[in-house]
């Protein structure tokens, strides 16, 4: 048991663990919709697109959270508007905004001398640098996202399963669409410090995809995804503590490992099961 408790002697480690738990849970629950609606590329793009906001905030000495939040929501709504007009294919629109704003973010950061350490933090996360204030913000915003998922559960379910029915029932589909995008932006921002821009999409997609292999019930899928997400976050952090690898990649590797396990071993749908069934 000592090896479990030892890292907890460091307050930064405790904060990191709590932040990872929150992020793992929030990302995974919202990620369920990302997986079901095929929005993985959008999530990835959004994560990269917050970088200019972070960079501007960083250069101006504003809170990074605020910069990222403004950029994330801006880009989410921008992509939403661009694709709803239907002039460009959605993946093309995302590709343009995503790479453009990512480049802008990096360009801004490279104006600072000795930028590489900070850039690395933004790209791959710095979970051990979570301050108490960051932790509160993570808890508040993550909790808000989870609350909204619960409050609009039946509306999001109809939207995801049958968008046509949503319109026939006169649900405010545009509002719900943008709400989901903004929730995604908030989640991305909340997760920035833990896993960073580059690996963000793994937290959204991998635990939910793992859960999808194991259940065909939405509430169960959300619950399992939250479990896999938070377990990966904690296990990854321990891994990084003992094996001395960067924490963000460690978390993502645990996620991926769990996914592969499910892919092989899931009852009925797993590869081993199918192989055994001939």
């Amino acid at each position, binding site marked *: 048991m000592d090896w479990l408790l030892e890292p907890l002697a460091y307050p930064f480690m405790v904060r990191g663990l709590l932040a990872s738990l929150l992020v793992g849970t929030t990302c995974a629950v919202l990620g369920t919709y990302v997986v*079901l609606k095929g929005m993985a590329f959008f999530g990835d793009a959004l994560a990269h697109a917050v970088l200019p906001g972070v960079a501007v905030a960083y250069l101006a000495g504003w809170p990074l959270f605020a910069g990222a939040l403004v950029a994330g929501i801006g880009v989410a709504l921008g992509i939403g508007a661009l694709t709803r007009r239907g002039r460009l294919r959605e993946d093309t629109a995302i590709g343009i905004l995503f790479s453009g704003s990512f480049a802008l973010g990096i360009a801004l950061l490279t104006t600072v001398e000795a930028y590489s350490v900070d850039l690395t933090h933004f790209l791959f996360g710095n979970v051990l640098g979570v301050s108490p204030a960051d932790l509160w913000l993570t808890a508040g915003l993550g909790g808000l996202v989870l609350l909204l998922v619960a*409050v609009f559960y*039946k*509306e999001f*379910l*109809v939207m*995801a*399963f*049958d968008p*046509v*029915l949503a*319109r*026939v*029932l*006169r*649900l405010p589909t545009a509002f719900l669409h943008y709400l989901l995008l903004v929730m995604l932006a908030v989640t991305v921002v909340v997760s920035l410090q833990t896993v960073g821009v580059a690996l963000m999409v793994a937290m959204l997609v991998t635990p939910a995809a793992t859960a*999808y292999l194991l*259940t*065909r*019930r*939405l509430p*169960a*899928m959300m619950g399992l995804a939250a479990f896999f997400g938070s377990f990966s976050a904690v296990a990854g952090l321990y891994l990084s503590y003992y094996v001395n690898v960067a924490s963000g990649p460690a978390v993502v590797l645990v996620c991926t490992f769990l996914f592969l396990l499910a892919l092989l071993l899931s009852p009925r749908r797993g590869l081993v099961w199918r192989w055994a069934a001939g």
Partner: protein
Amino acid sequence: MMRCEVLRVEELTAGYDGAAALEGVTFSVSGGEQIAVVGPNGAGKSTLFKVLVGLLPPRSGRVEVLGCDPLQGRVEVSYVAQRGEVDFAFPVTVADVVMMGRVGRMGWLRWPSREDRRAVVQALEQVGLAELADRQVGELSGGQQQRVFIARALAQGAELLLMDEPFAGVDAASEQAILELLARLKEGGMTVLLSTHDLSLAADRFDRVLLLNRRLIASGPPQEVFCPDVLRRAYGRQLAVWEHERGVVMVGDGHCSGGVEQQIAV
């Protein structure tokens, strides 16, 4: 008995970008009627349904569903889209799908009430799928899935049911089950518009047929609509039609219904 008018379409022109998919279509439907909408591919059948349910605003003309403009619309219309438009691997149960029909009347921040749950159970009993309520929808056969959507329409309290190609990819026994179900719903006064490529089914099982090809070619009982002149006008060179002493013989290229030859005895 006088039935009230459920649907009135006047001089409707509608479509997406470019040429109109429907032009100058006028017809009306009374309560409890069950109508087969037929016509060649691209005739505007799906477009018509999308206008009726308020998904597509008409370019011109007037549409009234249950006395309202479908764009302002009440929610007593139910629309069952073509099979390909639904993700059946989605993690929802049969009961979940039927419950979705209730979402429009539940209101924000509400969870399903006892009444909602009872409506779902009743709807599933009506379509004969009560035992499958907890299955994931993808585990059902194509015909059962269509019945799930009919149950959803019932739970929704729909008075008008629009079904786009419900028999595509459905085996004969399931087709029969769906038709029997629709016949029972007819007794309850449910008005149904159903598009199909199966002309003999339209002739055998429906009292009235709407024959579309961008324009409304004909509307009436099958024996009036399915006569050589009218069919030729709708299908043009896609179909060879001639009169035979026992009925109308038509030979098509089969890309619509999968069959090469359809014979309609009227």
